[in-house]
Each structure stands twice: as structure tokens, then as C-alpha cells.
């Protein structure tokens, strides 16, 4: 493994003889780039700017033939005073922080176990691949079945040790942890795989030196493994945080935001506001607040990653 490359492309030495040919080919290169750049401009930049424009308008698409009317920052000020919005922010943050923290810790344990001389990496990998590759919608349906309060397997297993049946997804206090559990189950392999790859690539001689010096396992882990693994840990964190913020499918399938609004993450609130109640302006404003937050956060992460590189 090589350290994460983040944003900096490599720059090998130039060969003067070939320079002329290179100059001639710049135009061809532009043609190679053009399809992707034009496509992305039309399909991701334009929609985002369109959403930004709509966020300053009031537009209820429920009313047939209605047109957007200018509303200034009205959507934004309304959102900032909207408890439903703040609830969604809170639920999303709890979801992301809890899921990613547990994934990182458990993933680290699994990765350490897997790289400490176990001779069954093949089967372990295969088993971990199943949740990871499972269609999130299918995972949602499956866990709905497992959590089912009357004939769910989880309640049955608990009854064997004398614990009374729980309502899980229908219980205001259990619903969010239950949803987070499904996310962890699906995404834990990401952390485990990537950290295991990182661990496998660490230099062996450092560990030999530590052993000679009589370092304990914990000391070795704290003083050698963690610092060396930091770039990989950052990559895992960045990826998992970004992806956890995107959560939609499993919440949609498991609870649809309920009970009450206990599991209503931002994505789901935007979906309901914009695509069920067709309050387009309001939903667009929410999208842009969400985006702004994500961009600022990823900016700091990427900067940290690049700093580690140089």
C-alpha cells in the first residue's frame, strides 16, 4: 500500500525529445476530457445551481401550473426557526457520530484480529462482503423482519434468555439505535477491510525493534501502529462520515422517519418536504444548508489529509 494520494497527481520527469509530440496532443487530451466534463457540468453542477436558485423562491408544486415566486432568504429564515429541521439535524448528527465511531472501533478490532496471523482470511473476507454488497433496500426489509415485534428472530432469541419482547422500530427510544445497528452491520466491513489493508502494509522492522525494547502490546499499538496508520484512519473517517450523511434507503425502509420524528434524518426530511409535499423552495434551501455543512467539513478533512502527505 502507498500513502493516500488525496489531491496531488504525480509528476515524473519530462523527456525533452517528446515535448513536441506532447504539445501537439494537448488538443486531443481536451477531447478526451470533454465528454466527462460537459456531462458533469450538465448533470451535477447545473442541478445544484438550479437548487440554489429555487431556494430563494417559494414554489408549491402541489398547486397545478403554479410558478416559483421570489421569496428572498425567507426559506432560510423559516428553516432556522423550524423545530422539525433542527430535529433532523440532531438525528442526523447522532446517527453519523454513533455509527462511524462504532464502525471505526469495531473495524479496528476486526482488522487487528485478522492481521494477527489468522489463517482464514479468505472465508472471513467473503462473509464480510455479503452485508457490504447487499442492496440497502433489501437490508432494510431483512432487518425489518429480524426486528419484527411478534415473530422477529431477535425477540425470539431474547425470549430464550428470559428477556420480554421489545418493539424495536416502533419504540421511540429503541428506533434510532436499531437503525444505527443496521448501518453498522452493513458498513463495518469498509472500516475492517481498509484498516486491515493499512495494517498489512506497515513496516515489520519497527515492530521487531519495539519487541526488542520490551514494549507491551498496548504500547506498540499506541506508539507505532496508530501514528503510522493515521493517514489510513483519516481516509476511512472521511469516507464513512461523508457516506453516513447520505443515509436514506435504510431509514426509508425501516422506519420512514418514525416513530414521531425520532429517526427522521435530513435526507428523509428533504425528501418528504420536496417530493411528497412538493414545497420545492423550502426543500432546496434545506439541501443547500446541508451541502454547505458537508463542504466545509470535507474541506477540513481533505486539508488534513494533504498535510499528512507533505
Amino acid at each position, binding site marked *: 500500500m502507498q500513502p493516500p494520494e488525496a489531491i496531488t*497527481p504525480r509528476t515524473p520527469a519530462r523527456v525533452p525529445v*517528446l515535448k513536441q509530440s506532447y504539445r501537439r496532443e494537448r488538443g486531443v487530451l481536451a477531447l478526451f*476530457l470533454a465528454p466527462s466534463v460537459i456531462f458533469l457540468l450538465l448533470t451535477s453542477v447545473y442541478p445544484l445551481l438550479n*437548487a440554489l436558485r*429555487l431556494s430563494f423562491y417559494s414554489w408549491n408544486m402541489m398547486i397545478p401550473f403554479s410558478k416559483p415566486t421570489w421569496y428572498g432568504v425567507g426559506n432560510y429564515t423559516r428553516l432556522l426557526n423550524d423545530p422539525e429541521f433542527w430535529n433532523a439535524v440532531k438525528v442526523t448528527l447522532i446517527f453519523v457520530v454513533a455509527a462511524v465511531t462504532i464502525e471505526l472501533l469495531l473495524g479496528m478490532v476486526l482488522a487487528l484480529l485478522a492481521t494477527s496471523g*489468522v489463517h482464514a482470511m479468505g472465508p472471513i473476507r467473503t462473509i464480510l462482503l455479503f452485508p457490504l454488497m*447487499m442492496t440497502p433496500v433489501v437490508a432494510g426489509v431483512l432487518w425489518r423482519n429480524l426486528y419484527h415485534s411478534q415473530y422477529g428472530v431477535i425477540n425470539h432469541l431474547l425470549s430464550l434468555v428470559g428477556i420480554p419482547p421489545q418493539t424495536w422500530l416502533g419504540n421511540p427510544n429503541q428506533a434510532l439505535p436499531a437503525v444505527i445497528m443496521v448501518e453498522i452491520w452493513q458498513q463495518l466491513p469498509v472500516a475492517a477491510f481498509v484498516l486491515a489493508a493499512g495494517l498489512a502494509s506497515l513496516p515489520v522492522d519497527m515492530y521487531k525493534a519495539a519487541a526488542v525494547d520490551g514494549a507491551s502490546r498496548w504500547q506498540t499499538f499506541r506508539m507505532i501502529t496508530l501514528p503510522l496508520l493515521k493517514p489510513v484512519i483519516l481516509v476511512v473517517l472521511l469516507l464513512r462520515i461523508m457516506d453516513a450523511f447520505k443515509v436514506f434507503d435504510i431509514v426509508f425502509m425501516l422506519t420512514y422517519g418514525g416513530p414521531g420524528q425520532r429517526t427522521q434524518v435530513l435526507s428523509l426530511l428533504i425528501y418528504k418536504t420536496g417530493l411528497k409535499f412538493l414545497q420545492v423552495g423550502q426543500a432546496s434551501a434545506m439541501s443547500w444548508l446541508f451541502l454547505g455543512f458537508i463542504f466545509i467539513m470535507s474541506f477540513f478533512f481533505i486539508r488534513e489529509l494533504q498535510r499528512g502527505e507533505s
Partner: protein
Amino acid sequence: MTTNYRLQKQISTVLLYVVIFIVLVIIAFPVYWLISTSLKPGLESSTYPPTYIPSRLVFDNYVAVLKSENVKFLKNSLIVAVASTFLTTIMGAMAAYALSKTYIAFWIRRALMLWILVTRIFPPITTAIPYYVIIKNLGLADTYAALIITYVSYGLPFVIWLMLGFFQDLPADIEKAAIVDGCSMWQRFRQVVLPLTLPGLAVTAIFAFIFAWNEFLYASILTSFTAKTLPVVISTFISDQYLRWGEMSAMGSMMIIPVMIFALAAQKYLVRGLTFGAVKG
């Protein structure tokens, strides 16, 4: 003292295996449950207490799923996933090839890479509403084109970043030799670079396919019937046919089969794919 140490080591090895085994059982059980439920006869899938081992194995659920109009939706899923994978991989590989050339000004490459990375970062829901409006205005609602455009857009950044890594891994001399032989850029790309990075290309395509195959949000917004894909069908099972766990599990199992085959084939580059090319496992 040495025997003591060896004994201790043996015990800790056994413990290690036991812990790993328990964790794996917990992770694997839901998958086992999905597949075993799909093979249970009749109403056994919703009995209590649940049967952990099916009383007998039958394929009734699969037959039922495949006899209905679901075949059409399966076809939709395949068409959309294959078409978008094809387009994403071709366009993305070309762009990545151009970006791997160091004689493009550094700041242009850097700016493009950052921009492409950013398009991967934003949550899909934030463009869902403009997509919905635009696709509707273009008259593309409920067509394959709507979904293919969306999936290409979401797959491109991923393909570009991943392929860039594979292209950069190629020794530069190979291409220089081809330049000296008078190959045009397109010839070099087609006949030298692509064949050499074929495994990378295949793996990238596999990831693009899995993304399109599993996608639910846009499929549910942009299609209603004609172009509906399998995840949308499965999502409607919940409200309409709450008790048909058997058929639902059969459909869910069918959805993971192709993905698992592909994922196993791409195992070697899994970490690279998962990390957007940042960690080369």
C-alpha cells in the same frame, strides 16, 4: 518457562479464533436468514417461533417471483445498470487518461480533480429535487434514459479517480515507446494503455455496476412503472404485501447473487475501490 509461554500462546490463539467466529456468526446470520427464508415452504416464513432450519427446501418463492411481471423489472434493472456502467467506464477512463498526463498544467489537473471529488461528496438527496423537475420538463420521466443519465453522473467521479490510479501505475516508458513508433494518442489509449489496465478497468466497471444495481432513491423518484427497477419493487412490498416474506426474501436473494459474484471477482482491488483509490490495498 518456554512451555508455559507456548501454552499461553496457544490459549490466546484459541481465544482469538473464538472471538472471530462469534463476530462472523453475528455478521453472517442476517444473510443466512434472508436466503433460508426464501427457501422455506408455504407460510413457514412467518411462523412463531421461527424455524431456524427450513423444514424442507423448496423453490416455490423463486418460481412465484419469476412468474409475475417482476421479470420485466429485473430486465429494467439489468438494462439500466449495464448501460450506465458501459457509459461511465468509457467516459471516465478517457477523462482519467487525459488527467494522468503530466504535461497538462498542474493547476488545471488539480482543480479538475478537486471538483470531481466534490461532486462525489454531496449527498444525492440535494440534487433530487432539481433532477425531478428537470427530468419531468424534458419529458424523460419513467424512462431508462432518466436513470442512466443519473447513474452516469454519480458514477463518473468514482471511475475517474479510480482509473487515474491505475493509469499512474503504468510505467511511463511503455507509452513513450509507442509514441516513438508513431502511434496517435487514440491508438495508444486503445491498443496499449487499455489492454494493460484491463483488470483495473474491469474492477472499476464492477463497482459502477454494483452502484447502479443497488440504487434506490433516484429510481423511486424518476420512475413509476415502465422503467421501474428491482429496489423500487422491493420497497413497495413492505406496504402492500406485508406478510409475503417468502417472496420478498427470494427477490432479495436474487438481487445479491450477481453483486456477490462480481464482488468476489473484484476482491483483489476491493480496498482500492472502497477508498476511491486513496488506499491501494
